[in-house]
């Protein structure tokens, strides 16, 4: 492994940005946004530099490492603060800093009216730094720092407008559900150290072949728990919808393009564990399949444009997780979908932001309509993203999603059929709800309030959208042409044997397109033919109501965890007061009252004292007699 001492700048630049802006306070209000953007951009530049250097090296020498300092060293628990840049992490570095910089630029304009814009940019920089640490850390513990760091940044950004109690609650919910996932990561690290004696990627990779399947499975499952938390996968998905409380650029960057995909990174990064733990892998694909459907279904009933997109994100990440769970054959496709998704979903979120910007922060799509007339650029960029997510050839999503569906079918046996069908079905539903979003927002008759004056966004906002749209169009083709990405990542993953194909690729592609067509058609029939009301219909089926309630995810969590937790808390508080402290106070007052009772034995009558002495003397004689017998 080569040493490269420049890696630290990737992180240091945005981190410095965050610290300077936070410490400088209001003094930095004037230039803070520019400074932060520059920091992010220079980090991107460093990333590009590293990438170009990496390209110059032969495949097996591309990975570079940097040891910063000895971090924790106790006994055999040795963890260095070390960074690792390899073919996998460079993908993320470029995505994070690239998309991140675009979103910085976008935010300059988007947040221009907010008096706390500086703070916003500080948080964004903090996020970039933490996310880079996440993907660059050379051990699970370093990753963990980034992992919680992005959680913190996400918390701060979701709650950026925390003067609204609902937003503050949303941020808290996100943090806590993430912590549940983080716990999984803790477990994984503990198990890894206890069984393998190391927590670094390289060390574990080396030790894994000798380890028992059971312990690897345990580590794998715990990593999956971590991934579900951060990537909003079933069953820890409930926070993502609420996370839309944050400013829209945040949703684009953190809750679409980068942070939420950290779970996919984690699983891909730990490929050496999952490859040797089939049970864990099976769970991964199950989680992926469930979530991709779950998210898609939720998406069908959302009227809030951001929440619809959030549901879509959840679903798309489900695809990635599914891909990553399919083993060596799927990792590259998961990453590819991650990258393409990064472009088109970020683009669409920014588009949504642009719409909101023009509509006085209205998010209800039922209050939109016919916006393409007023926001042509937004319409076009959003539309390109739409085509990409649908998987219409030759847009980006077509290449990546299709490959995942195909690989799923090829997973073999019943499993393959079930997974493949789920993925296909998901594609159909995706087509339905995304078309719904398009129709409700950009076409039909206007349904907005009279006060609204829809207008196109300034260049600082539409330029990033345009760039991302270009990515949505081209990235899939570029990455999959000649299996570029697959080969690029190949050195990292185990070799995979040829699977027998269940269905020919062309069949899968056709089926997927058919499903998409059906989805689009249904949406057209339902929303384009008839007038859309500006309020959600009240009289709907039970199923619809359940879907509107996010498939009861919050109700379930509230009933099962929150209520029991609250009941437990109040019980314990009372127990502490009444039982434990009560016992202590009881001893005190019992002592006092019995002392008071004993006190009355002092009657004041000298004869009773004499009697006491007499009794004492007799008792003494009796006792001495007993003792000596």
């Amino acid at each position, binding site marked *: 492994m080569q040493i490269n001492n420049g890696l630290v700048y990737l992180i240091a630049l945005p981190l410095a940005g965050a610290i300077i802006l936070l410490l400088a306070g209001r003094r930095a209000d004037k230039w803070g946004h520019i400074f932060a953007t520059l920091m992010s951009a220079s980090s991107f530049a460093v990333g590009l530099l590293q990438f170009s250097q990496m390209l110059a090296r032969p495949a097996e020498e591309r990975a570079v490492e940097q040891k910063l300092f000895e971090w924790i060293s106790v006994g055999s628990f040795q963890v260095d603060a070390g960074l690792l840049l390899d073919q996998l992490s460079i993908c993320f570095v470029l995505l994070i800093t690239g998309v991140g910089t675009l979103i910085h630029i976008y935010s300059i304009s988007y947040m221009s009216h907010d008096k706390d814009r500086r703070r916003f940019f500080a948080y964004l920089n903090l996020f970039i730094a933490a996310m880079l640490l996440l993907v660059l850390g050379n051990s699970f513990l370093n990753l963990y720092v980034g992992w919680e760091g992005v959680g913190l940044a996400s918390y701060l950004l979701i709650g950026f407008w925390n*003067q609204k109690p609902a937003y503050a609650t949303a941020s808290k919910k996100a943090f806590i559900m993430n912590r549940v996932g983080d716990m999984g990561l803790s*477990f994984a*690290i503990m198990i890894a150290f206890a069984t393998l004696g190391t927590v670094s990627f390289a060390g574990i990779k080396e030790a894994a072949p000798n380890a028992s399947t059971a312990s690897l499975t345990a580590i794998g499952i715990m990593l999956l728990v971590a991934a579900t938390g951060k990537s909003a996968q079933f069953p820890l998905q409930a926070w993502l919808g609420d996370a839309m409380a944050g400013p829209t650029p945040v949703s684009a960057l953190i809750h679409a393009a980068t942070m939420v995909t950290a779970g996919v990174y984690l699983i891909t990064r730990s490929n050496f564990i999952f490859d040797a733990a089939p049970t864990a892998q099976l769970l991964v694909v199950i989680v992926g399949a469930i979530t991709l459907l779950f998210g898609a279904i939720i998406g069908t009933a959302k009227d809030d444009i951001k929440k619809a997109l959030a549901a879509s994100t959840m679903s798309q990440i489900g695809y990635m997780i599914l891909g990553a769970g399919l083993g060596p054959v799927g990792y590259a496709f998961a990453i590819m979908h991650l990258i393409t998704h990064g472009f088109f979903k970020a683009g669409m979120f920014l588009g949504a932001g642009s719409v909101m910007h023009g509509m006085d922060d209205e998010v209800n799509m039922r209050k939109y309509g016919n916006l393409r007339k007023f926001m042509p650029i937004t319409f076009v960029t959003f539309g390109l993203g739409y085509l990409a997510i649908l998987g219409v050839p030759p847009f980006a999503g077509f290449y990546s999603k299709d490959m995942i569906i195909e690989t799923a079918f090829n997973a073999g046996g019943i499993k393959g059929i079930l997974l493949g069908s789920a993925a296909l079905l998901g594609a159909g539903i995706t087509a339905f709800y995304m078309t719904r979003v398009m129709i409700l927002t950009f076409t039909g008759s206007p349904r907005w309030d009279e006060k609204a004056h829809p207008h196109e966004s300034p260049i600082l906002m539409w330029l990033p959208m345009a760039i991302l749209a270009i990515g949505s169009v081209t990235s899939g083709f570029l990455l999959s042409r000649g299996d570029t990405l697959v080969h690029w990542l190949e050195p990292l993953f185990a070799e995979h044997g040829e699977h027998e194909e269940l269905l020919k690729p062309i069949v899968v592609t056709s089926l997927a397109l058919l499903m998409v067509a059906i989805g689009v058609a249904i949406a057209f029939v339902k929303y384009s033919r008839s007038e859309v009301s500006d309020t959600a219909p009240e009289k709907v089926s039970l199923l619809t109501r359940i879907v509107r309630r996010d498939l009861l995810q919050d109700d379930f969590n509230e009933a099962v965890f929150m209520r029991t937790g609250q009941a437990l808390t109040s019980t314990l508080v009372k127990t502490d007061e009444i039982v434990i402290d009560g016992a202590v106070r009881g001893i005190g007052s019992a002592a006092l009252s019995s002392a008071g009772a004993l006190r009355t034995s002092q009657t004041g009558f000298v004869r009773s004292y004499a009697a006491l002495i007499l009794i004492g003397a007799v008792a003494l004689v009796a006792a001495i007699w007993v003792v000596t017998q």
Partner: protein
Amino acid sequence: MNLSLTLLMALPLLGAAVLAALPKANALLAKQIALGSTFLVALVTIAMAVGFERDNINLQYVESHQWIPSFGINYAVGLDGISLVLILMTTLLAPIVVLAGWNESQNGRWSTKTFYILILVLEMMAIGVFAATDVFLFYVFFEAMLVPVYFLIGGYGTGERSAAAVKFLLYSLFGGLLMLASIIGLYVISGTQGGHTFDTQALSQLQMSSTTQNLLFLGFFIAFAIKAPLWPFHTWLPDAADCATPGTSVLLLGVLDKVGTFGMIRYCLTLFPEATKTFTPTIIVLSVISIIYGAFLAIGQKDIKRLIAFTSISHFGFITMGIFAMTSQGHSGATLYMFNHGFSTAALFLVAGWMISRRGSSIISDFGGLQRVTPVMAWAFFFAGMSSLALPGLSSFVSEFLVLVGTYTRYPVAAIIATFGIVLAALYILIPVQRALHGPITAGNENLSDLTLRERVAIAPVVVIIIFLGFYPSPLLKVINPAATHVISQMGFSDPAPTQLGGK
């Protein structure tokens, strides 16, 4: 003979003497003298820490004089890595507490100068209790420390302060007396085995029947468990912390309570290795209960000070668990945890104290929207909270994770249950953060003033230490590790080897 430690103890006493000679009226001068002397003590400690030979497992700065020769009692002090770190924590916290709580002596029953005399005497005794290598000397400091704290709580606190002070004192005295019984036992046994002595080293060589060992162990342990405080001996702490001034609370939770966990390492483990092994499972269970229980209770509190007190109970559960895990990670982690907890609790209590003194209430729901009114104070509180929930990158993460990892290798179930504490930690920190800092600005908070320069200067070193040690704990770990490993190996333990290495 090296007089450094005695000098170190003499300095605060000297400060106290100067204060005593001052006229009552000059409160400002009293504060300045107190700050000056604590600062000086901190500097001397740092110098001593620099001069400490890290890889030398023998006691350093050793000093021994006969005190009561007929009982074999010596004035004997010395430092190993563990005690050095704790003394460092104590002396660093002291000037911060003085500076942060500049005005907290105002509402006391007595004068400002008395307040600082008590603080300085307490500091001196805290140094002594950590430095003592003679069990009797340790006990003297252990008990005598109660007196200044008692008067600090009862004389300068708020609310039901005298009841809280009495509760604190009685709890501690009760534990202390049990320990006295055990110390007497040790003394008598040492008399039958080569002469009366209180030297920790010599006492650890005693031969005892297992029953005796168990009983004596319990005497020590219960005293320390009350002090630490471990569930179910904890109920004095919330009351005390609730009523004490923030500065006193910092010293109480940050320094005084550490004597309990320090005592477990120094006395329970080294003096009674066999009994320790017997009781370890029970103690691990108690620790885990403390972690979870403390966290739940913290979630359920309405008063910010009580909340912090309960978080500490949870944290002390971690420390105890780490100590009794008997692995080098657990042990070093626990010691580091003690240090870090001192600063994160200091941050929490000091900031909470500023919030309370401005708002005139310590009920969490009386606050709201502070982030918009007093951004710096809000940030400080948030930062302290993050440190308390062991956010990676902050010092408490390192120690908490070490404890968990170290425990897992020997007691996986305990470690797993304890890890749930980190989720609960997120709850007990974020709930008050949301209520106090976020949301609309509630009535009565509109005109609160932000942190003054003095307050910022006081909290800054805490922040710096927490962040620095989060990223670079090595300076401390290098000091702690040899001592911790020494304790473990003396007990006959070694770290469990990775279970899966060397083939299937």
